């Protein structure tokens, strides 16, 4: 099981704060998870497509699309940050 959290404009576009998914064992990276999620869920696919320069965190640490995933990981997806 992997929890996917969404923030800011991406959260609003996707219409939810988070989804918990159980992707097939072939999904071992963030890139593969994004690809798989887009195939599963048209609204999420559209929300991701509308979010250029997506930022990613795995277990609360900034990560790239290449980051590998393991059971129980928490993946966060969000637009570029604008704090400060």
């Amino acid at each position, binding site marked *: 099981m992997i929890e996917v*959290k969404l*923030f*800011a*404009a991406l959260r609003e576009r996707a219409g939810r704060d988070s989804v918990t998914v159980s992707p097939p064992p072939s999904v071992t990276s963030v890139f593969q998870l994004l690809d798989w999620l887009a195939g599963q869920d048209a609204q999420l696919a559209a929300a991701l497509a509308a979010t250029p*320069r997506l*930022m990613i*965190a795995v277990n*609360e*640490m*900034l990560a790239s699309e290449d980051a590998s995933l393991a059971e129980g990981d928490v993946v*966060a997806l*969000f*637009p*570029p*940050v*604008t*704090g*400060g």
Partner: protein
Amino acid sequence: MKTHIAVVASPLTPAAPWQWLHDAGLSGAQVQFCGQVRDEQGRVEALHLEHYPGMTEQVLRAILEQAELKWPLNGAWVVHRVGTMAVGEDIVQVAVSATHRHDAFQACAFIMDLLKTRAPFWKKELIGGRWHWVDARESDVEAAAAWLQAASAHEP
């Protein structure tokens, strides 16, 4: 180095970083940055900030650790406000104390530049009665990248 990191939903206290950093003779320099809600010529009516609880604090902690590796600091303070705030209110306070002023200036600017591009906060502005997400600035990305390039330029 002592550190204080907090994300709060209530107004910030201007003198708090000064008081907390005060160390009775160890530091000769305090530099404090305070970011405030701009009205953009009256266009912006209010600001709302969302963040990723847990990750925010971790990222801020990592930024302060990086700053401590680069400059001799005695203390560092980061308090960021979230929720809805009015024009002119304080959004963030970053303050550092050091023996010498150039270290304090550099570290404070570095912490802000990294916070802007790495800490999971997102702003939206109330304009004409509607909320609009704020776009990230390319100049902020470049400012953060410049610190990292300057660091790697020192390596062989």
